[in-house]
Each structure stands twice: as structure tokens, then as C-alpha cells.
């Protein structure tokens, strides 16, 4: 659900500021004149906003650009150094934390492993990691915010983790506790939605108003971006493409239904099916090893999963008609041929000629991506928060 804000003059000023900052980030180096042309704001308004951004040390002026006959324009770009955001990937008992700059580069990285039996345990573990990351800056530069990426259901507005399945925790008021402890704004988001947020800011979602991010690994999830905003939904389950049912009589899913995409094509499902072929393969690591060793059964299992994910993507296109589909996660990294299967299915079976040309792209994914994506939530707030 997109947060509704009152549209008054204060809102308009904040909106314009965010717009200018976003354009500088996307098109840097850029002149004030170009900003005025692209935003359709007056030159004095753009100059005022740029002045504020320079004073806030978010933007800097650099060497002169090419003149079209008059004075050479001064170009603007983001301040790349000493402007930080903190990102923590809290999707497993092994937390990964990063300090990143506003361009999404990692400055410092730490890890912490812990057992969380209660909400307080988890909050304390996050606080300890934040402390460690803040100390790593040696009090140099500005920290703009803290982003936390968590698995499960999250209410991003209140910053409450509604249910974190791997920890068996409910109603963790993480944002409230962190904002009481630290003087920075805190952003909490579901892990897949955070990955989409990273793409929106720094990856294949830059400048794309509407896209769907599909994650495939042990489980399958998704995130929908519309008009540059992550869509949350009334009950925070928008994008749960893994629980799209594809088979009335299919295998039982952890959600209590049958034939969900995740129960058919998630790696956990592949492992379940593979055990019937080879009972020695009991872990995902073993299954993935078989695939890299080109085991024909493992290849066939991933190929079949690709067919199902392709149908899931096709259904998503028919439901949301996004401009672009981004595919990320360990499954695509391990079996990139799945991407081609999906592209082929869309190109041949989507409803119309135009929808058959929906842009389907694989985006890079790594273990650290979660923490960087969490950091992007805080960065996003600078560029988008009104």
C-alpha cells in the first residue's frame, strides 16, 4: 500500500527536492539547466533546491561542462564519500551488516551469528551489529539511516516484523526500538521487497516506473514496484507469487494449500522430489553440487522448475502487465538456462504481441545482496521520502 500524504506546499517542496536529487543520481553529472528542463521547474526553484542539497552535503559541484555558446555550465553530482547508510540482512541466524555509500558501494562489512528465542534477543542482536557498524565509520561522515531486511511478513510503515518464520517470532517492534536507541531513521522491509528496492535505485529498475522482481531459491517470492514505489498491499502480502496455485492436486505447500509455485519449483521442493530419485541427497548443498556436476536428474529437476516459474511469470504478466520482470536469486545464478526458458515462454505465450515483448532480465544476486538491499532502503528514503 502506498502511503498517502497531504498534498500541501510543504509536500510539494519535499517532492521537488526528492525529484531533483533522484535525477542527479540517475543522470550525474548534470547541470541546473538540464534539471530545470527535465523537472519542468523554474531555474530559480532548481537553484534553490540544489543550494539546499549542497548545504546538506548530498550534492557537489564539479568541473565545468560543455558550453553551447554561453558560459560553461557547472555540473552537479552526488557526494560519493562520507555519506553513509547502514544495511543489515537479518534473514537468517547469520546477520550480515554493511556500511554503504549513497551509490550502493560497500564501505565496511561485518557478520554476527546468534540464536534468538525472544523478540528482545533479536532486537539486541541487531543493535549490537548497528553499534559495530557505526563504530567502523570512526565518527567520520554522515549516516543517513538504517535499513533492515528480514524474511517473512513485515509492516514497513510501522516497522514491525509481523512474523519471522525462521526465528518463530511475532510482532517484533524493531523500528521503534532502533529509533529509540539510534538517532537515525530506520526502515524495515521484507527481504525480497528490499532486493527490489535495490534494483529500483541502483540496478535494472532505475528509471523503470513499473516492474516485478521475482526471487527464486529455497522458496519463491516477489515484489511489485509501481510508479517508483514498492507496493505493500492491505495485508502486506503483495507479490507472494510463490503461493500462486498452479496445480489443484499438486504437492502440499507449507502454507497449507496444494500446488503452489513454491511447492512445485522452489529448491526445497526440488530437494523433496530428488530424494525419491537419490535418497543420499538430503541437503540443498548436495542438490546444488549435483547440478554443477551436470547430473542429468538434477538438470532435469531445475529444467522442470524453470517451466513452472515460467508459468508463474506469465501469470504475473497477465495480472499486473509490468514493463519489466527482474529475476534474481540463487536458482537463476545456478541454472541461468531457466531465464531463457522463462523468456521463451513469455515470448511465445503471453496474451498479446506487446505483452510477449515484456522485458525479462536476470539480475545479479549474491549473499551480500541482502545487506546492500537493506542499505538501499535507507538510501531510497533520501531520494523518495517526502
Amino acid at each position, binding site marked *: 500500500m502506498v502511503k498517502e500524504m497531504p498534498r500541501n506546499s510543504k509536500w510539494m517542496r519535499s517532492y521537488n527536492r526528492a525529484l531533483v536529487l533522484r535525477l542527479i543520481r540517475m543522470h550525474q553529472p548534470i547541470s541546473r539547466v538540464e534539471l530545470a528542463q527535465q523537472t519542468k521547474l523554474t531555474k530559480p526553484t532548481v537553484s534553490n533546491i540544489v543550494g539546499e542539497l549542497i548545504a546538506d552535503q548530498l550534492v557537489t559541484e564539479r568541473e565545468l561542462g560543455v558550453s553551447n555558446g554561453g558560459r560553461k555550465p557547472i555540473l552537479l553530482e552526488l557526494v560519493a564519500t562520507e555519506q553513509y547508510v547502514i544495511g543489515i540482512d537479518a534473514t537468517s541466524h547469520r546477520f550480515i551488516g554493511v556500511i554503504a555509500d549513497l551509490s550502493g558501494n560497500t564501505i565496511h562489512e561485518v557478520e554476527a551469528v546468534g540464536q534468538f528465542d*525472544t523478540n528482545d534477543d533479536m532486537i539486541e542482536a541487531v543493535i549490537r551489529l548497528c553499534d559495530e557498524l557505526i563504530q567502523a565509520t570512526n565518527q567520520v561522515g554522515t549516516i543517513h539511516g538504517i535499513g533492515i531486511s528480514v524474511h517473512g511478513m513485515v509492516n514497513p510503515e510501522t516497522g514491525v516484523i509481523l*512474523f519471522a518464520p525462521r526465528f*518463530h517470532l*511475532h510482532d517484533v517492534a524493531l523500528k521503534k526500538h532502533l529509533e529509540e536507541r539510534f538517532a537515525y531513521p530506520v526502515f524495515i522491509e521484507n527481504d525480497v521487497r528490499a532486493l527490489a528496492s535495490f534494483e529500483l535505485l541502483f540496478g535494472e529498475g532505475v528509471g523503470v516506473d513499473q516492474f516485478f522482481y521475482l526471487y527464486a531459491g529455497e522458496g519463491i517470492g516477489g515484489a511489485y514496484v509501481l510508479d517508483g514505489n514498492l507496493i505493500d498491499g492491505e495485508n502486506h502480502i503483495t507479490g507472494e507469487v510463490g503461493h500462486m496455485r498452479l496445480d489443484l492436486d499438486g504437492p*502440499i505447500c507449507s*502454507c*497449507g*494449500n*496444494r500446488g503452489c509455485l513454491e511447492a512445485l519449483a522452489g529448491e526445497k521442493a526440488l530437494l*523433496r522430489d530428488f530424494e525419491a530419485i537419490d535418497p543420499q541427497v538430503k541437503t540443498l548443498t548436495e542438490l546444488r553440487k549435483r547440478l554443477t556436476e551436470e547430473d542429468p536428474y538434477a538438470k532435469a529437476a531445475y529444467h522442470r522448475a524453470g517451466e513452472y516459474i515460467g508459468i508463474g511469470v506469465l501469470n504475473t504478466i497477465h495480472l499486473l502487465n509490468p514493463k519489466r520482470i527482474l529475476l534474481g536469486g540463487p536458482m537463476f545464478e545456478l541454472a541461468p538456462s531457466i531465464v531463457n526458458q522463462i523468456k521463451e515462454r513469455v515470448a511465445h505465450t503471453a496474451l498479446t504481441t506487446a505483452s510477449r515483448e515484456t522485458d525479462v532480465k536476470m539480475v545479479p544476486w549474491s549473499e551480500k545482496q541482502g545487506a546492500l538491499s537493506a542499505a538501499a532502503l535507507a538510501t531510497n528514503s533520501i531520494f523518495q521520502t517526502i
Partner: protein
Amino acid sequence: METEDLWVSYREAFGRYGAIRGFYVDRLTEQMTEQKPGDERTANQDGVLVRPRQDGVFQFRMSSVQGVLTIRSSELHIRKNESGYIELRALMQQMRTAGCLTLGGEFYLFVAGEVDTLEYRLRLIARVLIQLQRMPIGTDVIEHWCQQARDEGQQLKKHA
């Protein structure tokens, strides 16, 4: 009034949609088998029907007891003084710590009156939870967990 058909009773209690799994345990052999609707249950078999859910909420209905017991997995450490269920919470917490607790589910236990003890119910629930997670955990470990849960229950009752 319970009907003779477990599956009908289950659906009356928890609704007719969703994927329900049935686990029947033979009291003589201790063998647990997964059964489908319509499969005959022998006189020696007790059953647990379960529909998984993934919001961390567990609901238990016992054929011999009225009402549904609801437990949230995040509150397992809170020992509510509900008779007999301190032990269930203790057991589930141990399974949570061991990483073999499912994400939630709606359970219906059908146990013959003559064997319907807390001890027996705990063992049934533990075995079904393990089966749902498909984890290679031996009967001895399950027995140990159940024993610990009973000990904890007794300790708490002594000090209540």
C-alpha cells in the same frame, strides 16, 4: 458429537479447504503411516490430521476435549497455566530450538480413550511435527524431548 470419520470431523472443526494430511499410529507396533481420506483406520490405530499453515500459529483439537487450543510459536517460552499444556509448550520450544518446528498448523488428535494420556499425546504430536519437517530425528531423541517436557511440567506444577 464426533462422527466416526476423522476427516469429516476435521473439516467440521477447521474448514473444508486446504491440504490435510493424516498420520495413523499403530499402538501395537508404534508404526506411523500416512493415510488418505477413505483409508480404513484399524481399531489399534490412533490418528493425527493436520493442515499446515505458515504464520507461526498452532491450533490443537483433541477428540476427547472440547475446544481448540491455540499456541503462537513466539510465545512458547511463556508457560501459561493451562492444565496439561505446559508440557506441550515445553516440547514445542525444544523442537523450535532444535530447528525442527514447522511454521504452524491445525492439528486434530483422535486417540482411543484407553490410551489417551498427556504422555501419549505429546509423543504423537512430536512425531507428526518431525514428519512434517521431514527431519531425520530418531525415536530416542523424541522420547528424550517428551521426558524433558514432562519433567518441566512437574517442576512448574510443584512451584505453582
